[in-house]
């Protein structure tokens, strides 16, 4: 399975917040059409890491980054890569659902419009529908597109955020604890969705939930204190971890 193509990778990635070094020499490859889970105790740098993959961490004042991040062999921090174009290719879903305070339709149509991906009218309507379908939300909200997004339930809002990210047809989808604010049923829907989406794009997901990591991911990376302790097939990592720290974490002895 691991002879699959590498879609994204970091090499010797270091991130500093002022003097504080939040990530140390993190090198992980992400394979195309696979789900990679990032796990580890709170504060170990998972969010920092995933935000480096679409340069969202650039926006944090005082942060500094060293090392390389590749998307299809192209270095994303090099000057030839524009952060706006990068974020179209590498979408993101956040921990707390954060729809725009606009209609459901507007939420999905916004990104395609600013990137000029679809013309107003039927073309855009079509794109909104397919995006909502991909996010498994069309059945629930297809007839209420003009409703304010904030009136949806938490789980629906999160799937709307996924639809919004999918509308620009990204190649990679980053998800930072996408289900941690949701109830078990909504979580189940998100997990099913991740499984379906895998065929279209590469997914990197941060999760605190070990069961979730083992259910949805093909590979798992274990972070500890800003370093990657172990990266392996999920199956291997959860059944035969090679590092002691990994074993202690997944068996719940710390973290």
């Amino acid at each position, binding site marked *: 399975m691991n002879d699959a193509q590498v879609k994204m990778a970091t090499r010797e990635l270091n991130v500093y917040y002022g003097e504080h070094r939040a990530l140390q020499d993190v090198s992980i490859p992400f394979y195309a059409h696979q789900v990679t889970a990032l796990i580890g105790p709170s504060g170990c740098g998972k969010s920092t890491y995933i935000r480096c993959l679409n340069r969202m961490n650039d926006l944090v004042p005082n942060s500094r980054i060293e090392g390389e991040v590749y998307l299809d062999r192209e270095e994303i921090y090099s000057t030839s890569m524009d952060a*706006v174009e990068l974020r179209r290719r590498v979408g993101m879903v956040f921990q707390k659902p954060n729809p725009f305070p606009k209609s459901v339709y507007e939420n999905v149509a916004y990104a395609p419009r600013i990137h000029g991906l679809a013309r107003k009218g039927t073309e855009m309507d079509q794109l909104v529908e397919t995006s909502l379908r991909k996010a498994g939300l069309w059945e629930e909200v297809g007839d209420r597109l003009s409703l304010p997004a904030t009136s949806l339930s938490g789980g629906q809002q999160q799937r709307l955020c996924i639809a919004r990210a999918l*509308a620009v047809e990204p190649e990679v989808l980053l998800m930072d604890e996408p289900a941690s604010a949701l109830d078990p049923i909504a979580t189940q829907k998100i997990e099913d969705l991740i499984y379906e989406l895998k065929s279209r794009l590469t997914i990197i997901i941060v999760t605190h939930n070990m069961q979730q990591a083992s259910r949805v991911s093909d590979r798992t990376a274990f972070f500890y204190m800003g370093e990657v302790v172990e990266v392996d097939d999920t199956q291997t990592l959860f059944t035969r971890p090679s590092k002691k720290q990994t074993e202690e974490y997944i068996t719940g002895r710390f973290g």
Partner: protein
Amino acid sequence: MDPNSLKRTRMRYRSERRFKLYCAMALVLAGVFLVIFFADIISKGYPAFWQAQIKVDVSYTQDVKELPFLAVGEDVSELISRSWFRQLPRKLNEHPELIGTTRSKWVLADGAVDQYLKDKPNGLDKEQKNLVDRLRNQDRTKLAFNTYFFTQGDSKLPESSGIFSAAVGTVYVMIVTMAFSLPTGVLTAIYLEEFARDNWLTRAIEVNINNLAAIPSILYGLLGLAIFINYVGIPRSSALAGGLTLGLMSLPVIIISSRAALRAVPDSIREAAFGVGASRWQVVSHHVLPMSLPGILTGSIIALAQAMGETAPLLLVGMMAFIPEAPSGFTDAATVMPAQIYTWSSAALRPYAERTAAAILVLLAVLILLNLTAVFLRKRYERTW
């Protein structure tokens, strides 16, 4: 419960009641002052909305063009406002067909007659009073709604003076103030909140802006005088000079309230927009600005109301003057409502006193309306994310 703690509980209750009483008393005191203030100003200002008129026989003759006083009987001519006589020649020139006719008309009475009819101290002598009494018995006097107050500018004749020129001046000044301080203030706030990096320079600017909001307003008058009039060469007393001066004064208030409104937009919205590949300007103009607009507008309306009631800085740019004509441009000499109130309040003649109060009432009504708009905006667009 042991007696000691029981006692402490009782004392705690008692001091709580006492404190509550003090607070209530303070509230009552403030309320009483407010009621006294409104009662006083309304009772003083209300009569100004009614103005004495006298019914006389007006004979339009050729001579009236030269000597307007001849149009009415010699006895009553002293009771009629000179401003009414002044417009007669022009009227006859415009309507020559009137010449040779005599009509019975209600005409504007002199200010002293007006005060006499309102039982106020006045300058009429015994004979004139008897005459007015006679006219009153013949139903030839009345107090009619004072349209002059709203359609005329300031005048040396109290009975024909009004707030029109000051109101127009205020509108011109406010247009300049807002045109200058709203875009400047909002753009500054956007730059500081959304674009600037957090370093010593932006922090120094922030501290200075906060200090500027607390500066006595008369200093802005000095600044306006030095910059706009002496340096740039904008005409004294003009709406442009006054408006820019008040604009300088409103700027810190608008910047501070706009920044607060921008900061109230949660970062999750900015992240969401950046996350789908919006540029920084798109994030601001598509999301942050629309969401903070009600807050920005509320702050701006309050700044506007503040500027509208301001007098001190305008004193220094020469807007506190006798200006009977409404300005017809931004560089014409103009005066504003509070300046008009001040001018009238120091005038000697009695009828000006009630006009002072009436002008205050008009200004108050406008300010209350503005503040209600601000409250309405805030309530209407209050949103939770």
